[in-house]
């Protein structure tokens, strides 16, 4: 209708079809929404680095065991307390070698293999617990914000969970659920599910509060009323109109949530209620190495750096995604 006419003077032609109908610039071919998201995302350098690093780490912990196929649990007591290979640079005498590039611990377990195995668990715990917390937090936040009648009780429920002490909770969960989980998922799988659930179930409250606050404000916006007037059901209003608009606070919660989950897991290990002893996680490697930090700084630094870099890259990734998902920013 508007794009085909080619009158003599462009200005005159514009006046022919006054107003809002014309783009001034050449109209660009329609592009998919995800292309736009991707384009915006790509421009965020931090996000690309963060995403790249996360993929790298994920691949390393997933496929590392096939490349570095040393059993992380295998003891090699004669070769205990090796230093990382780089110590040879300044100390030719050091116990180090390519057999254990990152060194070995006090029982002669290979640290590289442990880092890889630990990364698997830590990343899995982090992602899953964060995901769980996010789902619960968002659900409770949205429901509390949207359904006024439930608001008070859901928020008081949030207070309740907020005040539950996590340690007895873990112990209780272990007592109640270990046996059935053990028989269904094996001892390690069972414990994993337990820890993930406990961390997830006790860290959604912040998300819920923030989401609720945003929903309360959004609910009063006219486009929600508009959606109701065209017959959109509550479920669809939540899904189509509310959720996409609270994506930004959810992203922030996700970033912080992953870090919190990894750290909570390690704190549980530190307090002795986490995973079985021979089940390495970054947090536990770090906690175990703290007493020997002076002699073997690499043992704290390696897992410490791994945790920090993961958290950092998730943070940048979150920033980038948030910008990319917001069409208002994307337009710029």
């Amino acid at each position, binding site marked *: 209708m508007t794009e085909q006419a080619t009158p003599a003077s462009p200005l005159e032609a514009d*006046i022919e079809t*006054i107003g809002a109908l014309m783009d001034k610039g050449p109209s660009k071919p329609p592009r998919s929404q995800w292309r736009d998201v991707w384009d915006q995302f790509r421009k965020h350098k931090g996000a690309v680095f963060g995403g790249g690093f996360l993929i790298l780490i994920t691949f390393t912990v997933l496929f590392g065991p096939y490349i570095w196929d040393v059993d992380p649990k295998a003891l090699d007591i004669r070769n205990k307390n090796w230093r990382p290979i780089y110590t040879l640079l300044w100390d030719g005498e050091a116990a180090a070698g390519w057999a254990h590039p990152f060194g070995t611990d006090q029982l002669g377990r290979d640290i590289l293999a442990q880092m890889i195995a630990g990364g698997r668990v830590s990343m899995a715990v982090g992602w899953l617990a964060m995901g769980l917390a996010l789902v619960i937090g968002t659900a409770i936040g949205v429901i509390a914000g949207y359904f006024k009648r439930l608001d008070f009780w859901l928020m008081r429920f949030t207070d309740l969970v907020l005040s539950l002490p996590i340690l007895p909770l873990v112990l209780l969960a272990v007592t109640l659920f270990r046996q059935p989980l053990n028989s269904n998922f094996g001892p390690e799988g069972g414990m994993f599910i337990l820890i993930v659930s406990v961390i997830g179930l006790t860290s959604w409250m912040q998300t819920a509060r923030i989401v609720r606050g945003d929903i309360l404000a959004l609910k009063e916006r006219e486009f929600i009323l508009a959606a109701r007037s*065209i017959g959109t059901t509550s479920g669809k209003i939540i899904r189509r109109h509310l959720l996409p608009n609270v994506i930004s606070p959810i992203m922030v919660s996700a970033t912080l949530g992953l870090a919190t989950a990894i750290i909570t897991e390690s704190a549980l290990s530190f307090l002795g209620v986490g995973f079985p002893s021979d089940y390495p996680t970054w947090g536990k490697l770090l906690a175990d190495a703290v007493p020997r930090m002076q002699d073997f700084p690499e043992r704290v630094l390696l897992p410490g750096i791994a945790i920090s870099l993961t958290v950092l890259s998730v943070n940048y990734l979150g920033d980038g995604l948030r910008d990319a998902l917001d069409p208002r920013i994307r337009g710029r």
Partner: protein
Amino acid sequence: MLDNSGTAPIAQIKGLRVEFQTKDGPVVGVEDVSFDINPGETVCIVGESGSGKSVSSLSLMRLIEYGGGEIANGRLLFNRSDAGEIDLAQSDQSLMRHIRGNEIGMIFQEPMTALNPVFTVGRQMTEGLRLHRGLSKAQAEERALALLKQVRIPEPERRLKQFPHELSGGMRQRVVIAMALACEPRLLIADEPTTALDVTIQAEILALMDRLKRETGTAVMFITHDMAVVAQMADRVVVMFRGLKVEEGTVEEIFENPKHAYTKALLAAVPKLGEMKGKPYPEPMRLLGTKDQEIKPIKGTTETLLTVRNLTTRFPVTGGFLRRTIANVHAVEDLSFSINKGQTLSLVGESGCGKSTAGRSILRLVEPKSGEIDLDGKDIMALNQRDLRTARLDMQMIFQDPFASLNPQMQLADQVAEPIHNFRTLKGAEVSKRVEMLFDRVELPRSFMRRFPHELSGGQRQRVAIARALALNPKLIIADEAVSALDVSVQAQVLNLMMELQAEMGLSFLFISHDMAVVERVSHQVGVMYLGRIVELGSRQRVFENPQHPYTQALMKAVPVADPRQRKKESELNFKPIPSPIHPVGYQAEPSAYREVEPGHLVLTTDSGY
């Protein structure tokens, strides 16, 4: 006033070009604009939305940098009273800080958001005074009080201690004006100071600015797209189009002898009160550039579609310890009217008189307290939530603010398709076909289907809202201020579109507006509302040509006329403040009783509060 040729212009814009850096490369906000402003003169800048009016004014303040813009070219000469002429485009920000607020004052486009919500009015008003004039706190407050009195805000002492949200839109706008005037600037820039306001308040504000200009001799740069306002205010007019100045001249020249095609088109698009005198039925406007358009009056039918009887809607005001209702906002009180198939009923009235609430009550988007609503034989009040949802297939709403009523996170095609998906009236590929058809229908390019609301102009957004309302082929559309936010040319198009649809599809409209000229153009029936009640109801012709109720008469008088030779004087206007619609719980509202002055022309006889 006009021939101050002896004194030098206070500001000269020469070859201004402003660019914005965006992801798709630089965008030109203003291409090439030059004009002068002389002391004591009002220069009106008119032009379609997005033509660069705001950008020009922000450039003059050198505020454009904070919005990501850049003055790529041109000179902005400003004549400082003591220091002679300087080029603002070259001066540094510290000098600009001295000029801003002190020598150039600015009134911004959005009165609602221009004030900081967490500081009191007094605090915000005294800030500039203390900075530029070095006044003490007490002195500054005294001066602020004087300013508030000057802009005729009732109870000025109290206002100083209030927060912006405690003031009505009109009051807020006046505060912004007072603030801009605080340091008696030599140049005042007013960017659409009245667009968002209803006629009565608009009239007040325009009169006020005119008076201030006369009293203080300030030069005014007045930005608007409302030609009627231009006619009332301007000494000289600059017409902008697509970042360019296309015409400049005195207000009489522009109105009586427009040269440029755009100016002509613009003037043609302005609905003028009284144009429809003698015509019983509404008819589309004749727009420039649509030569072969056939103007046919829209008759509609005599079959009743919607009957509303004794509709009452109240909002509870809760308070006290147990959150009990202690009072009610009587937003809609005993409202009765009916709409015929294929016809339009307009509701007009002051801001806050309950128009939107009435519209929403009919859809039961707010629950009415009592009354009957009958849509084509269906008793809307009796429906449960599920059936109500189904009933909404037949009635749709276009909301007051098109931007607010669109989800900022959703593509337009999806938003238009949403009602179809909701009711599964169509499936699969047919949905997208229908959406494409709707976009064509409202004359939006199909490439817009993938865009997001913020990427559209106001007029385009309004079309999306209309397309969405049409998606289900409803019988009734409630159009709540569907065109108030649009600039005239677009407004005319949208109005024509609506009338065209009505003629073709036999749609009925409940048209809510406060713009009397627009109402006159589109309606078969008119209801004038005041404080929740209809004070006058009848055919458009009768109500407009023979207004009976004193409120209707006052309203007619406030409408600005798009003719520079018919300027209104401030003394002609006398508005009473609207009484509060809040009554305690036990309050018994008396029923409305009407007198039939002519057949079908009813006037409220009981107390309306006016």
